[in-house]
């Protein structure tokens, strides 16, 4: 999983039936430099992921990529390749502790 900051939401109209009712978020992946600097920046290339946890704009999430991102919808097939697996409360790295509140600048 990579880390990403929720930058916004996407709504589709129309959409394939499999995606009806799914929440889509725009994520900006976070680089190690920005995570340690705690500057609220991401730095990676944006992507869209399915979110079932209710992540709010500005929150940091960890997202699964690839085939496993569709597993939560098993046994249905769904055209999903990124899925928000957890919402970050805090991250402790060797030299810094990141708190959720600090990213929401």
């Amino acid at each position, binding site marked *: 999983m990579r880390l990403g900051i929720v930058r916004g939401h996407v709504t589709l109209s129309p959409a394939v039936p499999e995606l009806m009712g799914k929440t889509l978020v725009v994520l900006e992946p976070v680089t190690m430099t920005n995570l340690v600097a705690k500057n609220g920046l991401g730095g990676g290339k944006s992507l869209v992921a399915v979110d079932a*946890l*209710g992540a709010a704009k500005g929150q940091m999430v960890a997202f699964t990529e*690839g085939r496993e991102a569709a597993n*939560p919808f098993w046994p249905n097939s769904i055209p999903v390749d990124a899925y928000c697996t957890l919402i970050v409360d805090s991250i402790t790295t060797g030299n810094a502790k990141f708190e959720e509140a600090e990213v929401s600048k």
Partner: protein
Amino acid sequence: MFLARIDGTVVPAAKHNTLEGCRFLVAQRLEADGSRGAEPLVIIDWVGAANGATVLVSTDGDIARERYGNTTPARMVVAGIVDAVQVPRAGNGRSA
């Protein structure tokens, strides 16, 4: 599979319901030239890797699916803690 260095831990505020009680670590991918991956990775660990350890990460979700069920989005898991890595440097060992 790839090698990664454990940098810290993640405390989730919310997580997928199949992953109750999981341990989430932050790791950075290690490259053969000694550099590190730019983006931190969140990896599930049930081996017990310590901070600073070098681990082997598997990106095959099947082992996680066996453990957490068919609906788990878990993918990257710590497959083992690295004891030693031998990467011959240029000029060392037998060269072609």
